[in-house]
């Protein structure tokens, strides 16, 4: 068991000393006040979300006051590891939509790529600007020891959570300015600027504008990440559009403005492939921009991330990422994968069924902490239920060992207690590859819980990277 703050019961890790002193002098009254202040702040700015079981009032994610801290050296390794992974994932996409070398080299079987729903046949033979398919990648990491990090999953489509990363920092600086005087915390507030630079560096070939016009495409206010969409477009100073604001004419994409049509060069889309273009993907879709794929393929606009980028974060492809790193970059993976059993394979399924009490079973297409089984924590009846599911639909599941996620000190009813955390840093790839100097730390607020998802009672923390 690894604790982020305590080296042993009585020894505090050096980089947590200041926080420990700060915690010591905080009274319960101050904690209560600051918690209330944070909640009011998050409600006022509207950083709320909705869950699958919708209630009338919008919910906010519990915010824990104690930051999670990385030293400069720790972060350096994560940074190299995440960037390496993000580069390999993009190289993989460029490869499978063109020559397919990794298939010819018998590293990844072609069935698991070309049969996947997230594979997009219309992308065959097309290369997006700079061969970047997925310019914004969120990598979910967990820590189990001083130098042991594991990648749980890659998010290559439209990873969300970066607004929490930024807002958590804002509220911490506002409530506890003295903490930032006493600790050298690397700032993160340049993330939106870097995101915009990344998008602008990915202008399509037919764009003559030295400052390409970028927009953020949102499904609308009902989407659970809507706050993030408006937050990011605001911070970047670009329009947040819905698909009805866009239309195709000739070989270009335009938005409807009060002065008439205005050409759009780069679309940072936060909607799924299926809803991009009813002519190309889902003819039933009432949302979408008819013809946008034609404009895209003829270099009139860039769509970020590229349609079909989702294949790279498929849970079945995940298994092969370390191989990809070796194959495309000729490097050894810096970050480890979690050992994963693919239930589609008969032998692995057998292993999973025999050892299900020790394993975590996940739906291949699941997310948000729904539809998963944590073997060691589950009742016999839910284990039996999953056994049946596995036997009838083995393709739909993977299994992993239960990792001993690190503990981070967390305020629970005014007491400091250890709770498990994960981390999602955000990697940007355009003209250059870079990692946010921090990320989103999610914390499982319930005692003993391994599930950090906000839909399952997870909270968030500010994440610090100390300057050198």
């Amino acid at each position, binding site marked *: 068991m690894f604790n982020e703050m305590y080296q042993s019961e009585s020894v505090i890790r050096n980089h947590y000393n200041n926080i420990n002193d700060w915690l010591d002098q905080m009274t319960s009254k101050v904690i209560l006040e600051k918690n209330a202040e944070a909640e009011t702040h998050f409600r*006022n700015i509207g950083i709320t979300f909705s869950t699958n079981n919708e209630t009338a009032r919008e919910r906010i994610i519990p915010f824990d006051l104690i930051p999670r801290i990385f030293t400069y050296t720790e972060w350096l390794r994560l940074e190299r590891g995440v960037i390496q992974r993000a580069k390999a994932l993009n190289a993989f996409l460029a490869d499978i939509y063109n020559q397919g070398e990794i298939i010819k080299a018998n590293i990844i079987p072609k069935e698991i790529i070309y049969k996947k729903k997230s594979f997009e046949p219309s992308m065959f033979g097309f290369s997006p600007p700079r061969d970047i398919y997925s310019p914004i990648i969120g990598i979910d990491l967990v820590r189990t020891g001083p130098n042991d990090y594991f990648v749980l999953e890659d998010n290559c489509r439209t990873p969300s959570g970066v607004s929490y990363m930024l807002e958590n920092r804002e509220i911490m600086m506002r409530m506890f300015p003295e903490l930032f005087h006493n600790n050298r915390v690397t700032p993160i507030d340049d993330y939106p600027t870097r995101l915009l630079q990344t998008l602008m560096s990915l202008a399509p070939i037919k764009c003559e504008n030295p400052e390409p016009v970028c927009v953020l495409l949102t499904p609308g*206010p009902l989407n659970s990440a809507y706050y993030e969409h*408006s937050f990011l477009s605001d911070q970047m100073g670009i*329009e947040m559009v819905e698909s009805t*604001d866009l239309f195709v004419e000739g070989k270009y994409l335009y938005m*409807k*403005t*009060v002065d*008439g049509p205005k050409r759009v060069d780069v679309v940072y889309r936060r909607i799924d492939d299926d809803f991009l273009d009813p002519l190309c993907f889902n003819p039933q879709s009432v949302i979408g921009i008819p013809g946008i794929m034609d404009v895209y393929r003829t270099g009139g606009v860039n769509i970020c991330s590229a349609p079909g980028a989702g294949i790279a974060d498929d849970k079945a492809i995940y298994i092969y990422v370390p191989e990809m790193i070796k194959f495309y970059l000729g490097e050894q993976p810096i970050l480890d994968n979690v050992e994963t059993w693919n239930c589609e394979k008969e032998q692995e399924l057998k292993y999973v069924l025999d050892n299900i009490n020790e394993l975590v079973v996940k739906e291949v297409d699941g997310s948000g902490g729904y539809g998963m089984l944590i073997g060691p924590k589950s009742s016999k009846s839910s284990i039996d239920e999953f056994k049946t599911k596995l036997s009838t639909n083995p393709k739909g599941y993977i299994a992993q060992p239960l990792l001993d996620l690190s503990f981070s000190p967390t305020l629970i009813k005014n007491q400091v207690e250890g709770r498990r955390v994960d981390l999602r840093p955000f990697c940007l790839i355009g003209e250059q590859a870079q990692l946010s100097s921090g990320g989103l730390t999610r914390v499982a607020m319930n005692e003993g819980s391994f599930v950090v998802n906000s839909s399952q009672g997870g909270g968030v923390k500010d994440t610090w990277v100390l300057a050198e």
Partner: protein
Amino acid sequence: MLSRTAEYLYWISRYMERAETTARLLDVGYRMSLFPNPSGYNNEWESVLSAAGVIEGYKNKYNTIEQKNVEDYLFFDESNPSSVYNCILNARSNALVVRTSFTPESWLAINKTYQEILNLKEQQFTKSDLPDLTEWTIEQVNLFRGSLSSLLRNDGYNFLFLGLFIERADNSARLLDVKYFVLLPKPQYVGGNIDNMQWSILLRSLSSFRAFRWAYDGNITATKIADFLVLNNNCPRSLSFCIQNIVKHLTNLICSPEKVGRIYNNLKDLNSKIQEEKIETIVEYGLHQFVTQFIRKISSVDKEIHKEFFN
């Protein structure tokens, strides 16, 4: 600026303005209910409902006009599109979409108002709370308007203010339409108690009661009040002031001069007429007809703005 953004901005300030108007009308009704009146106060509540333009909706829901019901209908009722509650909900859901097009303070002003009205609605309110509620509403709207002062003076700003003045022009004119008869010359009752009371209703509901006293010397007369509410360019709720500001914010728009030109052409007759006319002439010609025409014109300008800019 996106057409949709312009449209949402325009409607945000319409909703906020309407919330204030509804609150003021409620305040007037409440005040009148405290005064002895031989004909009973029910008539006042009825004219409050007519001025708010929701009398039909109210009568569909309730059989009798009672203070408690009117208050609830105008403030909290979800089925009344002009209730303060709905105005704030609508303004907020529009603001959610275009929050990037105005300042964080404007968003905060609207979102805090929204959070608070959800709480208010959950609490049971009693009669004595009404002045608090109306005062709160006016305060919130002022907070929002104040936040606009730090806005870039771009087209978004002009669309916000176009919305505000279109709504205000319509609200002021409809109130005059409901109450025009108290401004008609009736020699036998001039200065009588009933007139005084009616005039005060009219002025208070347009938040102009004290302003009128500052603007005009001597006796209160129907003609002076009519002049104040229709033609006086210093009165921020007069029809003339609203038209002037609609013209100002319309012609300040930088986008699409042709579209601006087309709408301006439709407006300019009314504008010059209202700037040159004498109140005596209007009263003689028929205050009622004048106001009715005005309402029709404002509604056609609103339609044109939608057609030219928001489609």
